[in-house]
């Protein structure tokens, strides 16, 4: 009797659980829209950077719909919150691709989130547009890297410092994670190749959110007082920047004495800082809000109108989404379908205008061409462009300055391989299908 009752209860509960499950997995399959997944953290530590990108995507989609959508259908954004939790990124990607059946995902910020998402995107053959500058050393058939590779940001910046400011001593300071580690390795190799001695390079790593910079700044000061011109190449991430620059300013290090070139400090980060102590320090990006072109002005006006706040700024990853989204739209139109394989084939070679007056092109290695701009921080939190590359720089997935990757090459058109070893003439790891 008792057992029977128990089994019955289990049955009822089981049924309701299945119902509950199907409510998570409910997939409204409407064929009259094209779904676009937006995978940016809206809570947790990364929300600070990623929320803006979510809004950018919503704006771009809205604009596209105003223009009549895509292939005659409306675009429908599907926003999820992976909450700065890396396994959750993978789970949400699966949800977007398998449940929501989105046709493309725009998202991720940190390297680790991309790494977490990557296997899922490859497994389910989805499309991911990744808008942030990153360490390179990766090329996936299903991912499009619209942010800068190291050769599109770090190396030109160092060239500028070396040639224009005659910097002789280098401090490579970064947060302890992959992007700074790789960038610094590439830079160290590059500098040594240019004849910089070991003792003229100081490398320093700090944890995320490091807030007490007193002795590191004092070390930098000492390192920089040897009579040779010194510069800091900073890959310090996010929250650690404010205390770093404040300490620099307070210890009396001005941009003329020891300039800091940052790769992770943009307009958005500056809008959260009292920019006064930063004036004159530099950043290398592919886009500055201050660039005076028609496209950019239109984009800024559109953004400010969309977000309804006059004080908001635009930044480089937003431009990357702008380029990436337009490339995707163009490729879909070219292919006539949103099918992943067709879009992957169609998108290589697609050219769209970027916001700095040039035209960016999708390369066979799934990176794009971009200009590199060097700007000095001004008091209003904007950049004054002091130098830019002559033309556009092609993104390089595998760095030429690293031992492990200098022989590797990525070409998804002719080789259909993301890591082709030019010496052994083999596709390493055999990830290609």
């Amino acid at each position: 009797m008792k057992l029977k009752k128990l089994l019955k209860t289990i049955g009822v509960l089981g049924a309701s659980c299945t119902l509950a499950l199907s409510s998570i997995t409910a997939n409204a399959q409407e064929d009259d829209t094209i779904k676009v997944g937006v995978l940016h953290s809206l809570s947790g530590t990364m929300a600070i950077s990623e929320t803006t990108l979510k809004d950018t995507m919503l704006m771009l989609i809205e604009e596209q719909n105003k223009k009549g959508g895509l292939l005659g259908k409306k675009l429908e954004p599907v926003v999820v919150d992976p909450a700065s939790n890396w396994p959750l990124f993978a789970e949400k990607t699966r949800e977007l691709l398998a449940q929501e059946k989105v046709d493309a995902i725009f998202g991720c910020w940190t390297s680790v989130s991309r790494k977490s998402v990557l296997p899922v995107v490859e497994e389910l053959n989805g499309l991911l547009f990744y808008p942030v500058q990153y360490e390179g050393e990766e090329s996936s058939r299903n991912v499009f890297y619209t942010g800068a590779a190291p050769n599109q940001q770090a190396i030109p910046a160092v060239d500028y410092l070396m040639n224009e400011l005659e910097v002789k001593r280098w401090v490579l300071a970064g947060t302890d994670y992959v992007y700074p580690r790789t960038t610094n390795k590439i830079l160290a190799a590059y500098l040594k190749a240019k004849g910089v001695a070991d003792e003229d390079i100081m490398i320093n790593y700090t944890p995320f959110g490091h807030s007490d910079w007193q002795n590191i700044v004092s070390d930098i000061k000492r390192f920089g007082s040897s009579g040779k011109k010194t510069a800091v190449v900073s890959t310090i991430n996010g929250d650690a920047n404010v205390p770093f620059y404040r300490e620099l300013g307070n210890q009396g290090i001005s941009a003329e004495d020891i300039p800091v070139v940052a790769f992770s400090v943009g307009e958005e980060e500056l809008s959260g800082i009292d920019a006064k102590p930063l004036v004159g320090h530099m950043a290398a990006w592919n886009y500055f809000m201050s660039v005076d072109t028609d496209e950019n002005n239109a984009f800024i006006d559109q953004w400010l109108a969309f977000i309804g706040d006059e004080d908001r700024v635009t930044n480089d990853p937003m431009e990357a989404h702008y380029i990436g989204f337009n490339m995707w739209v163009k490729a879909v139109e070219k292919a006539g379908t949103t099918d992943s394989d067709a879009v992957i084939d169609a998108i290589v070679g697609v050219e769209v205008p970027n916001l700095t007056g040039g035209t960016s092109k999708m390369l066979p290695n799934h990176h794009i061409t971009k200009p590199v701009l060097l700007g000095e921080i001004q008091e209003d939190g904007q950049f004054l462009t002091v130098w830019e590359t002559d033309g556009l720089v092609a993104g390089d997935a595998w760095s030429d300055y690293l031992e492990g990757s200098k022989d590797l090459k990525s070409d998804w058109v002719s080789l259909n391989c993301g890591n082709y070893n030019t010496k052994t003439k083999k596709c390493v790891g055999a990830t290609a299908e």
Partner: protein
Amino acid sequence: MLTQRLLTSDKGGMLVLGLIALTCIVVPILNLAVPESSPFHVSTFAVTLLGKFLCYALLALALDLIWGYAGILSLGHGAFFALGGYAMGMYLMRQIGDRGKYGDPLLPDFMVFLNWQDLPWYWHGFDMFWFAALMIILVPGILAWVFGWLAFRSRVTGVYFAIITQALTYALMLAFFRNEMGFGGNNGLTDFKDILDFSITADSTRIGLFLASGIALMLAYLACRYIVTSRAGKVIVSIRDAESRTRFSGYQVESYKLWLFVFSAVLAGIAGALYVPQVGIINPGEFSPLNSIELVVWVATGGRGTLYGAIVGAFSVNYGKTVFTTFYPEAWLFPLGLLFVLVTLVLPKGLVGLIGRFKKNKSATNKEEQP
């Protein structure tokens, strides 16, 4: 005899166990045998999601055993979970072999990346599953033993214990974030290919992992029941309620706490090991003290000191989280935070206690359900 001891007078537990067993039977069938077009099809997404919940439930069970029964609140249980996960992750990394991006037969990608020449000593052996499996048990177990021995011996209890366990997991998190440690730094371990020669992305492997998690959870539940219904279990409850009385009854309280803590840590390690191949990544974020606190909240929400309450809690909170992050991505922390507050204020015995309260009029509640 034993079945009777473990299962009777544990109606809630039987119900939960039955449900898990049912899920373990039904879900694989609905996933593999039912065509995708059918409304009864359970997607692979749902399978991995459920598999993840099962691992969380196992972790919650481990915590409930020491918190609910021995009154030891560990705010660092995520550390054991993550260590088990890392041990499994290291095995999976070694399984990649030369299919990494750089094609190095021995070194994982991130080591090639950092110009490491040799495999660090602590990575040896992880190419063998049995070794990894041993480590999944030993590493959390030994850490728990050393830590517990130090802590219990000097009678660190209650709030102090909670805080130093938090320090433990925080220290581990910072340490694992360091790239020099050789565990992949912030990116952790990812891009796994095979487990035991099965492709990790295959649906059948997913079902296998899902089943393994379900079975592990059921076995762990029975093991925990066995402990709490044994004489040792009663001693443990006595320690919770009147520690010095137990001591003056001739029990070496420290040793009881220590073994229970070690067992709980091992369970957490196993949960982590099952979790990693299903979510496909392990990184130092798992050590974050916030994760451990959240874990405590699952147990509290479900109802502590009942074992099955922990499972209910883990499922309901995580299900709620999944729903909220999908439907209210901007504001899901509000309901989540509110839940924590309400549970502690209104439902000191958790969801299970709430159900118990409804049933109170019907039948006399069994004693063990009361923490």
